[in-house]
């Protein structure tokens, strides 16, 4: 069934389709409508779940973790400062190897207060042991939820996962979304079976003190599980395509990259704008492409290496800045390429922080800049705060 829904409605419908046994959440702009829609579903009886309305995001994650420890499926949603408040418990979920799934609406960190999109909230959770998927559109928000449970609950994985959707550009913008049939979702996503759980018949302790002689081994097992996620994502993406007819390109979503000479690489809704510009430039005969960073953790370093071997330059666009260095994606991509013989210029474009609009003309300007770098093989500078109002902004950045 096709419906025109917002990203938040897509997330709420996704939750309903995945039938979590326990949902625990706390409202924060711009995630609020997710918790409201879920409340409506519970109230009208269309979603049978224990809906625990907690007093903070920290408690929301704690309740999901404890419920998951009993072997049931759990869901929560948050945004920005809420995600930051959860931070401590995020590490708990992965350390305890619990497949909690969450939707995070990417929103800027204050001050200055801003409710608009920025990816720093997600980036700050990079090392928590969660799987991170950035959605590009509302359909992907919904589809990624179904896929995420399948990935997280796999016994070779057993890790938590979060799906990121851009504030307002997705959360509050309506798009046509294909809502899969419940029966098909049930077929794709069977009931969660825990490997081990809190059980009266087999009373065990979970999450205790471990001495230094074995702590590393437990952490290594998380690292191994995260490595398993790579092939699991590709496998689940293919399975999903077979059943639902949609695919998201696995780890790194490549668009017109086969013969591309220079590409833009980044995450979120800006990718849609880049896609449009790629089409326009292709019509002009320019060999450009888009590599959408769909999965941030585990990081698609192999896919990025492969791409980098075939292009002359990469421009990284990112809605976040890692203070004291550069854009977070840029640093990661640089790291992925260092121990190879690939030596192409990479330029980092910091764009659209705090929800500033990124339009096709801006992407054109970035591609123009990148074309010069690709042709000359020379990088003028590594990092550009694109569109920053410094009193002499060039016309194309306005």
């Amino acid at each position, binding site marked *: 069934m096709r419906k025109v829904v917002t990203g938040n409605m897509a997330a709420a419908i996704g939750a309903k389709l995945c039938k979590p046994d326990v949902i625990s959440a706390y409202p924060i702009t711009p995630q609020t409508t997710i918790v409201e829609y879920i409340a409506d579903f519970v109230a009208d009886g269309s979603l049978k779940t*224990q809906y625990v309305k*907690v*007093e*903070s995001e920290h408690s*929301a994650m*704690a309740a999901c973790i*404890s419920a998951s*420890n009993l072997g049931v499926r759990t869901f929560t949603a948050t945004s920005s400062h809420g995600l930051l408040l959860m931070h401590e418990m995020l590490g708990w979920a992965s350390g305890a190897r619990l497949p909690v799934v969450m939707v995070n609406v990417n929103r800027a960190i204050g001050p200055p207060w801003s409710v608009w999109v920025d990816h720093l909230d997600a980036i700050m959770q990079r090392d928590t042991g969660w799987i991170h998927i950035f959605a590009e559109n509302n359909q992907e928000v919904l589809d990624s939820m179904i896929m995420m449970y399948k990935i997280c609950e796999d016994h070779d994985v057993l890790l938590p996962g979060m799906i990121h959707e851009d504030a307002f550009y997705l959360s509050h913008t309506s798009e046509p979304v294909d809502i899969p049939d419940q029966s098909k979702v049930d077929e794709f996503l069977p009931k969660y079976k825990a490997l081990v759980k809190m059980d009266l018949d087999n009373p065990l302790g*979970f999450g205790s003190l471990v001495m230094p002689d074995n702590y590393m081994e437990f952490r290594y097992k998380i690292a191994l599980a995260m490595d398993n996620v790579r092939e699991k994502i590709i496998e689940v993406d293919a399975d999903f395509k077979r059943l639902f007819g949609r695919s998201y390109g696995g780890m790194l979503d490549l668009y017109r990259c086969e013969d591309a000479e220079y590409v833009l690489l980044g995450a979120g809704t800006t990718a849609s704008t880049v896609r449009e510009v790629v089409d326009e430039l292709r019509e002009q005969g320019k060999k450009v492409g888009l590599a959408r960073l769909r999965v941030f953790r585990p990081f698609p370093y192999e896919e990025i290496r492969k791409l980098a071997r075939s292009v002359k330059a990469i421009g990284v666009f990112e809605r976040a800045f890692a203070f004291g260095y550069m854009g977070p994606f840029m640093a990661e991509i640089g790291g992925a390429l260092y121990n190879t013989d690939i030596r192409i210029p990479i330029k980092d474009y910091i764009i659209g922080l705090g929800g500033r609009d990124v339009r096709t003309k801006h992407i054109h300007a970035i591609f123009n800049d990148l074309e010069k770098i690709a042709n000359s093989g020379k990088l003028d500078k590594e990092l550009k705060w694109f569109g920053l109002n410094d009193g002499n902004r060039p016309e194309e950045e306005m």
Partner: protein
Amino acid sequence: MAKLTIPKEEIMSPGHMGCQGCGATMAMRYALKALGKKTMISVPACCWAIIPGAWPNTCMQIPMQYTAFEVTGASISGIRAALDSQGMQDVNVVGWAGDGGTVDIGIQALSGMIERGHNVIYICYDNEAYMNTGIQRSGSTPYGAWTTTTPVGTTEYWEEGQKKNLMEIVVAHRLPYAATASVAYPEDFIKKLNKCLEIPGPKFFQVYAPCPTGWKSSPELSMDLARKAVTTRAFPIYEVEHGKYKINRKPEKTPLSEYLMLQGRFKHLPEKEVEFLDAHYEKEWKALLKLEEMTQDESLGNFM
């Protein structure tokens, strides 16, 4: 007459890491005797995160999860929700946290848990400071006490705030049952736990648990100190059932100094400070007697 006054079955095993004379360990042993094996327990950072033993050991014969410091209330809400989603109503869900994890860092999650009305039991074992981290003051540390963060120096002398009245905070949530208990009176503690198992909704206990290590007291005195805390009015034993107060022990008052001077943490207190503290406890006791009297009013009904 030879008989045991508390249940014989042991659900806590020996070989645990509790200090010699640990009141928190006594409290757990008694609580488990009342709760039985159909119980799941969540324990945040506190002494009890260490007492069961390092991986892979445990002294607990029931399912137990460790959790973060401030989330005991939320964690047992999660356990209860998961059990409810599976139709498993007949499992006792218990949160077991220290005083710091309850009155300070965990009070928000505790408040949310009570207000949601989940059928759970929250037990705070109160040893009046952060003992697991090495005797730092908490909101539950009484006036006059030495701790490592309220040292007896030349410009500051001891903890200057009064012990936070946790019960009044909890009772203000209008929950069906809240009680104080003490390891000095295990029969009373067990009786009240048994009673609360019959009451649906959130239940709360604050159980007094002497800590020889943190109180600088002799380990064999743990029970005696807990008893003296009751007889000196420093820690009265009472319950609040559907809003009605009932003081379970009204013993003859004994001198406060006899309680304080057995503990290194109070040894520095001059006599006038002991008198000041004694007057405070006396005032609190009188207020408690009034509350008991007031809430017997039948016209109030079961207002909580």
